[in-house]
């Protein structure tokens, strides 16, 4: 009533006749603010996407070449007397090397590739691991002695780099491991089909190799190490984390003590992971005398790191179960424990599993604590024999192996480090996709 009488006095005469479709200055301002905000949001996402694409591009462009490897096909006659002589010497592989050298020289003559190089120099196109490959084959296939076996020996890292475009003739000017003359030979051998690039299964399933033969290094053993560590983390942190959160959320009285515990759990989630490494070193290795570099110890350390994440996500998903479910269960005569385990926990399970998988993914990519418990170096060189060894024998983990490769001098290891990142990312992506699927399919909303 007062409005009608006040309206003509307070507003301009035209305001009454203004259409709803015509915006007043205040609305315009609000709309502009909203439009600006949307632009900010899009720009923010754009920047994020740009960096994601740049990151993926650099990872893929540097790492994809690690999945291809150059090899040299040679037919080596396995002669009983030569093998006996080799097995008697101190450094047995050096005799096997001579056998390979003879075959290589012969093969080149057959192929019509002329060279003035001595056989020792010529051998630089092959991996230093070739004699070991030959010897392993002879020892595991004694029945083939007396016949001629065909081998795909790995080419040396520089030959491999040449075929991948990483090494050029100019770059070899001062290199003592390979010369431009070798590359001329390689060009001819490639033409004859003796030197070929193939998919590098050894990179995915093989073991680490020393600095002198990067072409032989693979991430397989450290993948096994990561697997055993994740088993330890899962088996320990899931029950402990879930039990702790059920107690805290459903049973514990709300008092100063539980508040204190709650604050500390949140604090622990923010503690830098290296701190857990120091703790693991002193508690598990120096005090409990668990073996060094063992995946078990790595798993225990990562468990400590993952627990807070799991507890926090479990409590959140328990909290999101509506109280009416609990009340209904209690109302029909269930005990507190029955109401929790029969009704609340099953409903909270998808959330708990999602939290656990995300916690595991975080643990899988963690390197810092592993540095302190001796998992970086030349560790992942042999596959563990059996499950028991898998937990206790020294091993590395994927991120630790990547870190180690990135440190090594030969640029071929650098390529492998990027390749390792691709494999690690694939694992992380699978885990995160599983977490999303679990959440989408099983989560109930109220």
């Amino acid at each position, binding site marked *: 009533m007062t409005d009608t009488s006040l309206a003509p006095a307070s507003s301009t005469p035209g305001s009454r006749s203004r259409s709803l479709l015509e915006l007043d200055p205040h609305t315009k301002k609000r709309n502009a603010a909203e439009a600006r905000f949307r632009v900010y949001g899009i720009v923010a996402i754009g920047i994020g996407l740009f960096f994601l694409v740049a990151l993926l591009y650099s990872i893929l462009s540097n790492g994809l070449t690690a999945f291809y490897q150059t090899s040299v096909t040679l037919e080596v006659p396995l002669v009983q007397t030569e093998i006996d002589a080799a097995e008697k010497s*101190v*450094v*047995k*592989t050096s005799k096997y090397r001579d056998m390979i050298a003879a075959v290589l020289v012969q093969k080149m003559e057959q192929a019509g590739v002329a060279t003035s190089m001595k056989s020792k120099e010529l051998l630089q196109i092959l991996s*230093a691991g070739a004699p*070991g490959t030959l010897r392993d084959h002879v020892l595991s296939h004694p029945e083939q002695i007396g016949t001629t076996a065909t081998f795909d020996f790995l080419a040396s890292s520089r030959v491999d780099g040449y075929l991948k475009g990483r*090494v*050029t003739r100019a*770059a*070899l*000017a001062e*290199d*003592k*491991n390979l010369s431009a003359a070798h590359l001329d030979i390689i060009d001819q051998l490639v033409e004859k089909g003796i030197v070929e690039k193939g998919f590098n299964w050894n990179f995915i399933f093989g073991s680490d*190799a*020393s*600095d*002198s*033969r990067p072409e032989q290094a693979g991430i397989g053993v450290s993948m096994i190490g990561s697997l055993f560590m994740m088993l*330890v983390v899962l*088996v*320990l942190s*899931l*029950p*402990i984390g*879930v*039990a702790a959160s059920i107690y805290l959320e459903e049973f514990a009285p709300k008092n100063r003590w539980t508040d204190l515990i709650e604050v500390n759990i949140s604090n622990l989630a923010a503690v830098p992971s290296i701190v857990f490494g120091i703790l693991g070193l002193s508690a598990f*290795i*120096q005090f*409990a*005398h*668990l*073996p*060094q*570099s*063992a995946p*078990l110890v790595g798993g*225990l350390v990562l468990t400590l790191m993952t627990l807070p994440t799991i507890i926090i996500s479990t409590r959140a998903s328990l909290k999101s179960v509506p109280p009416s479910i609990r009340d209904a269960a209690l109302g029909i005569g269930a005990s507190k424990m029955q109401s929790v*385990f029969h009704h609340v*926990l*099953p409903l909270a*399970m998808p959330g708990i599993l999602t939290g656990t998988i995300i916690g595991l993914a975080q643990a899988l990519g963690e390197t810092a604590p592993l*540095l302190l418990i*001796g998992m*970086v*170096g*030349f*560790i992942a*060189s*042999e596959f563990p024999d059996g499950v028991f060894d898998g*937990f*206790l024998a*020294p091993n590395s983990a994927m991120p630790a192996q990547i870190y*180690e490769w990135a*440190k*090594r*001098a*030969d*640029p071929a290891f*650098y390529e492998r480090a990027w390749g390792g990142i691709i494999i690690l990312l694939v694992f992380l992506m699978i885990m995160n996709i599983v977490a999303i699927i679990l959440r989408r399919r099983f989560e109930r909303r109220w």
Partner: protein
Amino acid sequence: MKFKTLVSVAALAAAATAVAGSAQARDQIQVAGSSTVLPYASIVAEAFGENTDFPTPVVESGGSSAGLKKFCEGVGENTIDVANASRKIKDKEIAACAEAGVKDIIEVRIGYDGIVFASQKDGPAFTAFTPSDWFNALGAKVLKDGQLVDNPNATWADANGELPAVEISAFIPGTKHGTREVFEEKVLKAGCEETGALKAMVDGGMSEKDAEKACMAVRTDGKSVDIDGDYTETLARIDANKNGVGVFGLAFYENNTDKLKVATMSGVTPSTATIASGEYPVSRPLYFYVKKAHIGVIPGLKEYAQFFVSDELAGSEGPLAQYGLVSDPELAATQAAVEAEETLK
């Protein structure tokens, strides 16, 4: 149902931990220490696993000091067997070892490591250095017109007229590296003496010891950058900075000759030959230390030590020399000492 699974999972976990507590006898040699020795030790470990019936030894990195500290933790399967070091063990460390029960230590010198000075392949012509150049470029206090002053040199040409006139930007190993010690000792201190700064300091009333310390102090105005990471980090810095000059190990340089150009030191080009003959001034011996008490307990330990210093590996034609180790001219004496299990002192 769910509860039962949880309980059984927890029981399994407890069992796993209990099993681990009673760790079985270790049959794998464990080595830790210097990251400079790591490549050589891993080449040997790989060949050892390949050529013998023993499992491949495990070689951890972490630095000489950390390795020796671990080595001196005590005797027993839970401690490491071999420590790699890019410097000699200190008396303090020997005492710490003895206190923990590690009394008999076998010292094995495997060869020498050269330290080289390199810059971007296509960068300015840093081709010849002397210790004096480095001291004049990096020293905290240098001699200028007969006066000791805070380092005023902004370009390498200020330090030595024959060097390129580009801004000084040097990447040197951080203080936690064993390489830094050698750099200070053989380059900065030598340069300090050559330029006469040491004499000026002593004349100025400093004690000999303080003056030497002052000689090894590096300027802190950002022209010299400490690299605490590995040589790969130094390489990345040089890659990004045309005028950068870095300190590398010989083996690292030889693996990256496509990106780096090495400079001579006092007119000598670094190579395994010039280092072995002692002509090239900046080098240091590399060692590994073996716990004698573990020989006979850990299978293959003595064989590993013998294998390491055998002519086939550590000799001048072996894979270690191929990778960049300067083989020891007195290798035969080392082999005999390992054979006899000669301990320190």
